[in-house]
């Protein structure tokens, strides 16, 4: 099987993870900007989702967890070793699984779709595919590819 070079994968991971940091940061700021939570009259899906009890886990805003996850993924793109490959895969897997759960909640429980959350879920899915490809293609190899340029 022909894999893209690890350098290409790492650059792609860095680029998508940076986008993810942006999206998650936007959601965090947008949610905190409103002050106290309120159920908005005529508000869109995002307000409903952000105000639902599912927007926090143990008091931590889910979007902040997202920022942390994307930063870890961004970090793993800067190293070409097995630890980074595996950590990247594990973080993307966790993020991907969590995105599936959150999307399930949006559709079936909260019954509101927030486009920013969907954007994050798509980015996490892409990151999962990229990291899985990287791990399968390059686990056990020792390459010394250059640090990827930020997209």
């Amino acid at each position, binding site marked *: 099987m022909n894999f893209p070079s690890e350098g290409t994968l790492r650059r792609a991971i860095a680029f998508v993870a940076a986008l993810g940091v942006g999206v998650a940061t936007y959601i965090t700021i947008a949610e905190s900007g409103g002050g106290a*939570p*309120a159920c908005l009259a005529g508000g869109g899906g995002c307000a409903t989702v952000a105000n639902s009890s599912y927007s926090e886990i143990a008091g931590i805003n889910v979007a902040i967890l997202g920022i942390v996850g994307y930063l870890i993924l961004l970090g793993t793109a800067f190293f070409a070793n097995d630890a980074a490959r595996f950590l990247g895969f594990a973080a993307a897997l966790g993020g991907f*699984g*969590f995105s599936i759960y959150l999307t399930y909640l949006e559709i079936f429980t909260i019954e509101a779709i927030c486009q920013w959350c969907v954007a994050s879920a798509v980015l996490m899915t892409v990151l999962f595919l990229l990291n899985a490809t990287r791990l399968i293609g390059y686990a056990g190899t020792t390459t010394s590819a250059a640090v990827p340029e930020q997209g």
Partner: protein
Amino acid sequence: MSNKREREKRREERLQAEAKVDSGDRRTKLLQWAAGAVFLAIVAVVVLIVVNSGSEGGDAENLQGASEVDALVGNVPQNGMTLGKPSAKVELIEYGDLQCPACKAFADEVLPQVIENRVDSGEAKITFHNFAFLGEQSAPAGAAALAAGEQGRGWNFLELFYRNQGTENSGYADDAFLKAVAEGAGVKDIAQWESDRESAKVTGEVQRTTAEAQRLGFEGTPSFAVEGPKTNGLELLGTPNGAEEIEEAIDAAG
């Protein structure tokens, strides 16, 4: 000389082969770990979804928190949807939707402090007005609370409802749920409550206060207003950032 070169060559080949085996071992191990992680992730997502689908509130047969509600409002005078001494100088008005999770959060985390510090002392009274906009069951739930208020149990109903609130617009707030909350809230005459909650007086009041909230320009729930000797009519607070902000507004109004 050639022997030495051959030995070196063999040694190099052996090292390379070992490195290859090493790297192959590492690769196998990593991929095994990855497969394990995938398995764990699948289990975690399935468990989360199953647990979540079984833990939604709104369970009429298993109401929680009746004793907490009693402790909070049991000893405070009630008149209709007003909690507190009728003689209190300041009136705090809450515009809420029983289905709204933020109103539940206020009932859980903000209002108890206000009730203990300002209502119990007789400084202020709180009146609940329906701003029923979230869904089909919002207005009937609000009417059910008003009907409980006709029997002096309006705040018991509100507080007990919020403590058992289900997922917004999931259909949990049906007749059976409302009746269970009314019974749990200590509404004595359930037949009267049933007829009151359908009455034109009560349903009209829900519509009136909802329209009033919109006219006042409130954009979400819970929204608050305060009125007292030092305010110029109703003073709008919007959605305050916590109990302290509400208490300051009460102090400023009185």
